[in-house]
């Protein structure tokens, strides 16, 4: 049996230098992602790249405000990611509502629904500020303090309660079935004729 703890520094180094990002623009901060990912600031220097599939992604960037409709998908996507996974929340909106503090369709406190590791200020944050947040996450990973995914497992009841309170019980099934009648609609008419 190998003692994996010996390799912990190496593994943590690999984790911190190879964070793959879920390609999910959840809000307006998505517009600052292209400069960050592409030639201008080139996050690939740190091995970060947007990954289309959540199954192999590590870092979830909540780019700005989150509407309940998106939050449902965020939660599902977040749960699809394999552990360990990290969440970076951009700007004011996930923190305290931002300019949408009184909007009926924007989440005010993201940490009630999924755990967040790092917050950055700005509306929207400049790429440099996002970089600073990523640097912070890297530091946290190195010291083993980025434990959002552990918290999600431990306090699952708390998060689930909040989610259910917001969306109503059984929201996953409901969302999945919502479109079925409309996908079928036309076929049915044809059969009747």
């Amino acid at each position, binding site marked *: 049996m190998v003692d994996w703890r010996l390799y912990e520094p190496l593994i943590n180094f690999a984790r911190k230098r190879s964070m793959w990002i879920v390609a999910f623009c959840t809000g307006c901060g998505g517009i600052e992602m292209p400069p960050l990912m592409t030639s201008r600031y080139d996050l690939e220097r740190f091995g970060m790249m947007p990954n289309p599939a959540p199954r192999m992604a590590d870092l979830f960037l909540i780019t700005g405000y989150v509407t309940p409709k998106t939050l449902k998908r965020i939660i599902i996507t977040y749960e699809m990611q394999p552990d360990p996974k990290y969440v970076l929340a951009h700007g004011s909106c996930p923190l305290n509502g931002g300019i949408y503090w009184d909007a009926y369709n924007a989440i005010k406190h993201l940490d009630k629904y999924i755990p967040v590791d790092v*917050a950055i200020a*700005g509306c929207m944050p400049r790429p440099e500020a996002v970089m600073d947040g990523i640097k912070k996450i890297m530091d946290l990973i190195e010291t083993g303090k980025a434990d959002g995914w552990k918290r999600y497992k431990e306090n699952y009841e708390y998060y689930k309660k909040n989610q259910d309170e917001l969306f109503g019980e059984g929201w996953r099934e409901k969302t999945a079935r919502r479109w079925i009648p409309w996908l079928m609609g036309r076929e049915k008419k044809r059969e009747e004729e």
Partner: protein
Amino acid sequence: MKMESVKIAPEEKVRKKPSFLKPWMSLKYLFKKPVTIKIPYEETQIAEKYRGFHTLNWKTCIGCNMCGQICPARAIEMTWIEGEKRPHPKIDYGRCTFCQFCVDVCPTNALGHVEHYILTTEWKDEELELFDWVPLPEEMVRKFSDYRHPLAKIEKYEDGRVKYVLRDGSEFEFKILGYGLKPPAAAKPKPAAKSAEKKEEPNPGEKKE
């Protein structure tokens, strides 16, 4: 469907010819210098008057609440501070959109802004307190030239005292009496009610975790 005075581009100018060989021209960039700015190792130049964090001249602020009225996000809350005659704005970066209309409307130019824009914290309640502050005077913020938020920590005490620890270790301490436009509970006569209100304030933070 004719419109007067529309200059329509000739079609051959709009069209292009497909080619197999031209794309290979772009390989010349293989040997050119990358355009990448290597943040965080390389400093980027921030424009002058970039709309970053606020500053507040505590002496000239007259507590008129113009900033609170114009704020689209209701990020500004008037705060009564011991020793100050008029309330001062407290700005919540969990709401602020950095539009700086508040700076524009300030009648005495007490509220200003600097270019500093970086504030990164771990998502812990005690660290998130940094997002909610009464802005410091400009020279205290300008001291730091790396575009970061000047505060390292905000310590809150039971009796409403608040201690700002700056990143260079210096401290800034004051006592919050209450919030709102009116002086909190006639300032002096009923300290009991005040403290009750204030006790409530740090509580939600502790309760949650």
